[in-house]
């Protein structure tokens, strides 16, 4: 397979995914609205005390991001699976890992990036101190792609199942634990004036590792679901 063909396949897939996403924009807004609602529920549930909210802000925002991502992952491969497009993609002879990566990138751009862009609003609601805002955005910018990459494996494994959505969250949440720990620690450390570069560094390492490994696992899972 020539490099050029793979490259054009990648961009073609991305373009197609964006077109489809644009046509379904109402559906894509749901996880984001969910994100906003979940974060809103916390002050309502634990009380509006600024100190308390500031304390739990990194965790709450990140957990809400996890939940919203899992919601958007279920439909990652489903419509293509149901109408046979996925099968055609597998048969096309293109590297399935590349196809998986293209789909994951598209997912992040329409589902993960908006979370990053909404985070200042969430930080304001949760009373996150200013010192933490930049790191919050940074942690989400690095972390949400990892959520998409690992989540794609779960999405591919459950795409052929009837109620795969619920199972998807069970499968994927344990795998998200290290990311959650590192990201919230980075933000909390930044707020406290402590060093956070270690956490960010590890998160970047995780991003690179998942970028190189996850597409292959996703490809294997897609082949499995289609067999």
């Amino acid at each position, binding site marked *: 397979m020539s490099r050029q063909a793979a490259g054009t396949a990648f961009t073609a897939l991305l373009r197609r995914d964006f077109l489809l996403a644009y046509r379904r924009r109402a559906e894509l807004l749901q996880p984001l609205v969910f994100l906003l609602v979940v974060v809103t529920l916390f002050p309502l549930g634990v009380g509006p005390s600024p100190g308390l909210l500031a304390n739990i802000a990194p965790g709450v925002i990140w957990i809400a991001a996890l939940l919203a991502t899992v919601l958007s992952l279920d439909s990652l491969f489903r419509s293509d699976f149901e109408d046979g497009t996925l099968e055609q993609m597998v048969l096309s002879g293109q590297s399935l890992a590349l196809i998986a990566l293209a789909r994951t990138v598209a997912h992040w751009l329409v589902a993960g990036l908006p979370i990053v862009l909404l985070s200042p609003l969430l930080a304001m609601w949760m009373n996150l101190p200013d010192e933490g805002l930049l790191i919050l955005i940074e942690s989400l910018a690095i972390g949400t792609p990892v959520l998409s990459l690992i989540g794609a494996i779960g999405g591919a494994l459950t795409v052929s199942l009837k*109620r795969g959505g619920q199972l998807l969250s*069970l499968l994927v949440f344990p795998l998200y634990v290290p990311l959650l720990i590192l990201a919230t620690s980075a933000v909390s450390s930044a707020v406290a004036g402590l060093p956070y570069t270690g956490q960010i560094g590890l998160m970047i390492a995780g991003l690179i590792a998942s970028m190189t490994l996850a597409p292959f696992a996703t490809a294997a899972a897609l082949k499995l679901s289609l067999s």
Partner: protein
Amino acid sequence: MNPIYLFFHKTGSPPWFYNFSGKLIPWLWAGFFLLTGYGLYLGLLVAPADYQQGESVRIMYVHVPAAWMSMMIYGLMAIWGFIALVWRIRIMEVLIISSAPIGAAFTIIALVTGSLWGRPTWGTYWVWDARLTSELVLLFLYFGVIALYNSYDEPRKAARAASLMSIVGAVNLPIIHFSVVWWNTLHQGSSIGTSGSSIHPSMLWPLLYMAIAFKLYYGANLLSRARVRLLKQDHRKRWVKDLLSKETS
């Protein structure tokens, strides 16, 4: 032909595996009961109480081996999963999915005994210490694999999905464990377990006997579950029909 290679080749045949494991199982149970009896005798009656923790340290003789088994079984599932995915060996698929509930059982034992150990020692039933938290995440990983397997209709496809998930989980497991350990040092100082890295021999021996005993339990339970699953999957085949008629006669 190399006898070891021949042995593994034979295990690929379900009727041969069924018969061979049937002969092996009673020995495994016998070994389990002997070692457990001796290990508990040493641990509960002979070994001393801990200087700091008192008598509750005796829970260690069931908590630690159970935790070791919970991790070993998941590791085996991942290794066998890789073999099963690459070489499509059916007996491996059966062993993987038969191991999962046993692994989950050991994880639950580790969690419950850990919690009961914590109450008299640190005053609380649950503490988010590194090991208990990692065990809890491991339990969710087990549940995920089991749920994934049960969601698929076709057994071989289900086993391949479970294998893939086991591999992904196992790759993440050390990362999860280290991140939880690190998270724990950030938020608390407490640590569960024996008081120091060197264990007195009078405590080490019962621990080792129990650890081996649990491995024998795993072997016996795994083989009996695998046999049942083979019967169920192969119920239309000749060897099962012959077996049934032999049993009724």
